[in-house]
């Protein structure tokens, strides 16, 4: 009898607790997903970029966003080094680093695969702010291997 009581209290109760926790947790909300590789298109180079010749103009093929909840870390292209860190508040994303600043919003019509805003990075040694649009690249195979 003691064994049964012990088993119920040490095994049965936690299992019941897990069932309740799973039910209650359905109401929780997590931040919108922005993780992935974003293909960037500059709308119109501005500021310092126009003073540079084409060869030195920045190539900005993609931004990789690593997301952990609200926290955002951004790296440029295939670079592993994190260029800027910041956060996502509702649909607004802000991140800053030594050489990169991003201030953007998810698309107004609720399309979460499109981002628009301003990006600031060093061009010819000077900070230059540019307007950009970005679209989320299709996810690579997420399987293990």
């Amino acid at each position, binding site marked *: 009898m003691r064994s049964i009581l*012990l088993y119920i209290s*040490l095994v049965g109760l936690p299992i019941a607790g*897990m069932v309740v926790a799973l039910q209650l*947790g359905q109401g929780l*909300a997590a*931040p919108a*997903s922005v993780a992935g590789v974003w293909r960037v298109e500059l709308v119109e180079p501005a500021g310092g970029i126009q003073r540079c010749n084409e060869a030195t103009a920045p190539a900005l093929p993609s931004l990789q966003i690593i997301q952990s*909840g609200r926290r955002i870390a951004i790296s440029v292209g295939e670079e592993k080094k994190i260029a800027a*860190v910041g956060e996502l508040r509702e649909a607004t994303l802000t991140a800053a680093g030594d050489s990169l600043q991003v201030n953007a919003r998810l698309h107004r019509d609720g399309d979460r695969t499109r981002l628009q805003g301003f990006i600031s990075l060093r061009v010819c040694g000077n900070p230059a702010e540019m307007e950009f649009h970005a679209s989320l690249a299709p996810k690579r195979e997420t399987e293990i291997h």
Partner: protein
Amino acid sequence: MSKIAILIMQIGTILLASGIMGWICKRFHQPRVIGEMLAGILLGPSLLGWVAPGFSAALFPPSSLASLSSLSQVGILVYMFVVGLELNPRLLRDRGHTALLISHTSITIPAFLGMLLAFYLYPRLSNDNVRFTHFALFLAISMSVTAFPVLARILTERGLMRTEVGAMAIACAAFDDVSAWSLLAIVVALVRSGHLSGMSFWTQILGSLAYVSLAIFLLKPALARILKWRQRKGAGVGEIAPLCLLVAFGSALITEGLGIHALFGAFLIGALMPKEREFVQSLTERLEGVTLLLLPLFFAATGLRTSIALVSDAEMWFYCALVVAVAILGKFGGAMIAARTSGMGWRESGAIGILMNTRGLMELIVLNIGLDIGIISPALFTILVLMALITTFMAGPLIELIYPKRISDREPAAVGAEVAV
């Protein structure tokens, strides 16, 4: 540099770093595997990528990582087969209802606490692409894992395998592994069902149940007969090992196709292999060469995905401390309370709690799966990797403190406490 040259350089560097760290850990009376785990992290962005980014980028260019990852996955497949091979249902049967209670409690209490933790962490470290159910179940599993193989090595190295405490811990860890992998297969099926596997959840689960039944009732006796026949014909373990690996890889292909992950198939075949001590020991020794070479690659592949920079501020370190505290409280506390209420002494109960709290490599395998299928974020992955390291690292010194050799030597030898390591 050609792809093969880069791969050779990578393997050389990884083996060198693992060897050095393994040697250092041995000096501090820690299992070599902890050194290998640390070496993997040191080679990633957390240290090498931070102090020498140019060298790190040249040694581990993103385009080369697929080869390294594939090689390491083959190593993990072989390793999971060996883990299954070392499991022996007799271990649990011989220990009666106490082992049953401890093993069940050391799963349910950490799993429950893991789910409570999920309440707090889901809005903070997840995103709305991940369903709460998947996140909570995964966190529950990652809290309840025990590293059966690392535990077996700790017990052997400290001469505890034949004590009642050691035998009880290894029996419970064996059961925990089977439970954790079964639960993980369900979670992977849940996440992959539909868009990733092209199958519904129930098709995956029913298909998997059908395959497991087939393996238990047809494949297991067939394997036993074939191996006996080969042994009668004079085949040594060198000839039998490739056959066993062939079956394990075939099974891995089937479970991968069913959407519950290749590792489960390899583990299943290992668990269904005949359990004669000599056979298990010689086959394990034969395959150890493969895992010795390929496991450090897995640790390096894990280290390359672990970035301490993502756990950079006080808030993130608070989450990290919370995860570690919950993991220890659940596993150590759960196992200790169960052992104590079953009539064991405080010291023995504490020792069982410490041993069951060892997570090691098994946790890293589970975490990599979670990151691959997108259930956990890179920062949470890093936090959980740190938790695995800390809980594995603390086992040795704490067991020495609570259950020193002078006390364990006084205990009569336990019955049925045999495992090939």
